């Protein structure tokens, strides 16, 4: 493997992806409640993962078809798990952090019971 310009670009894209993954971790640590944590922690990782895959694809173009499949898989499954976690938390009665402006879902549940 020689050091061409493609490899440098690929490495930079991987680095950018890693930066987003780091921000996801930092968000997980800083956010005040489960809903905001899901937002920061599981989804800053979407772009992070995409960029890492893309960067690897630039370095190794032969892997690109498989990497595209991995990306599609992440795009379809990642939001499902975040959504189910959030719904389970809400059904379990975990209240959003103090200072949350509105909780329409709790209001509507109150109407029905």
């Amino acid at each position: 493997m020689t050091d061409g310009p493609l490899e440098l670009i690929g490495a930079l894209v991987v680095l950018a992806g890693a930066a987003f993954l780091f921000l996801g971790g930092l968000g997980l640590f800083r956010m005040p409640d489960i809903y905001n944590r899901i937002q920061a922690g599981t989804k800053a990782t979407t772009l992070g993962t995409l960029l890492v895959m893309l960067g690897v694809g630039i370095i190794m173009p032969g892997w690109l078809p498989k990497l595209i499949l991995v990306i599609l898989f992440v795009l379809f499954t990642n939001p499902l798990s975040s959504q189910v976690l959030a719904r389970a938390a809400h059904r379990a009665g975990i209240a959003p952090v103090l200072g949350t402006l509105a909780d329409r879902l709790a209001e509507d549940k109150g109407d029905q019971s």
Partner: protein
Amino acid sequence: MSQASDSLKLFATLLVAWILLSGSIAFDVVAVGVAAALFITLISQNSLSAFSGLRALPQSFGASLGYVGFFLSELVRANLRMAKIVLDPALPIRPAIVRARTELTHPVARLLLANSITLTPGTLSVEIKDEWLYVHWVVAEGTDNETATREIVEGFERYLKVMYG
């Protein structure tokens, strides 16, 4: 959309995925792929696939491309916005769970809408009931239904309406 053409599309998608993953078009490899794709197609006759209900019209093809482009640009923009919030020492969040109305009726279109909302950071689908989507919003621009619908749903809905009718 008929059951038969849905099954055909599922079969074709699975086979293409198999060939991409195996990276080979040797006869025996493809034969195993055909058998596996056929088996999966047969046991999932009545389940939905990403293609059920997608209208095979020129404008829905264009809308699909537009949807992917809009989605990717939203993804990047929202990730940058989220990065800025996380790095800000004051952590400037204004969270709320808001109600947004969707006019989509097809289950696959609604799934794509909810998934797209969840994938763009800052908004997270929590629950869907009839026409109402309940969305957790990290920096809420308003808590009334109209603002939420306009800011969260309408961008994606414009394309999905053409794709799924």
